[in-house]
C-alpha cells in the first residue's frame, strides 16, 4: 500500500514536470516566432526569416 502511493506520487510529479516543460516550450516558441508586439518583431525579424516562421 505504502509503495503504491509513493509510486503514484512520483508518477504525478513527473507528469507535472513534463506538462510544465511543454507549456514553457510552446510559450518560448510563440514569443520567438509568433508574438506581434513590434519590439519583439523587430528584434526577432532576421531570426524569423532564418527559421522560416511566417513573417510580415
Amino acid at each position, binding site marked *: 500500500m505504502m509503495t503504491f502511493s509513493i509510486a503514484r506520487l512520483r508518477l504525478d510529479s*513527473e507528469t507535472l*514536470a*513534463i506538462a510544465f516543460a511543454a507549456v514553457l516550450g510552446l510559450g518560448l516558441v510563440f514569443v520567438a516566432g509568433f508574438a506581434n508586439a513590434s519590439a519583439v518583431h523587430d528584434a526577432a525579424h*532576421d531570426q524569423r526569416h532564418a527559421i522560416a516562421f511566417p*513573417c*510580415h
Partner: protein
Amino acid sequence: MTSRTLTGALIAGLVAGLLAAALNLWALTPLIQEAETFEGATVHVHEDGTEHVHEAAHSHEAAPEGLARSFGTVATTLVAYAGFGLLLGVGMATAARMGHAPGLRTGLLWGLGGFAAIQLAPAVGLPPELPGTASADLAARQMWWALCAASTATGLAALAFGRNAGVAALGVALVLLPHLLGAPQPPSHDGLVPPGLAAAFATRSLGVAALSWALLGALTGLLAQRAPRGALA
C-alpha cells in the same frame, strides 16, 4: 530520469541555439540585408521594354541596425531553440516512460524528426522567404504553419512508435494532411527579390536548421542518457 531529460534538453537547446545563431549571422543575415535593398522598391519599365529598379529610400527605418540587430538575432534564436529543446525533451521524456530509453543515437533520430516537423514539412508549403517576397495573409500562414508542424510531429510519432498498421496509416495521413489542405499562397509569386537570392536563402535556411536540429537531438539524448555506474545521477 524525467527531470534530467528536461534539464538536459534546455541546455542542449541553448547550445544548438548558439550554433544556429552563428550560422544565421554568417550565412543568412547577409542575404536578408541584400534583399532589403529590393524590398519596397519599385520596378520602372520604360517604353522600349527595358526596366530598372528604384530602391526604396528607407524601408526599415525603425528596425535595429548593426550590433543591436545582431544581438536581437542571437537572443531570439536562443529563445526559439530553448523552446524547441524543451518540446523535444517532452517527447523524449514521454517515450522514456514508455520504455524507450534516450541516448545519443536515438537523440539524433529525434533531432532529425524535429527538423522534419518544424522546418522541412512547413517549408514544403511555405518556403523560407526573404523580406520583399510575395506572400499570403500572415495570420493564415501562421495557422497553417502551426497545423503543419503539429500534424507532422504527431504523424511521425505514430509512425515511429505505433504497433500496428492502423496507427501507421494514421501517421501517414497526418503527415500528408497539411499538404492536401494546401498552404495559403499569394495570388502571384511576382516579387522584387531575385530568384537566385531567394533560392540560396531557402536552401541555406534548411541546411542551417538541419545541422542545428541534429546537434539539438544528439546532445539532448546524450545528456538524458543514464549516467555511468558510480557517477552522480
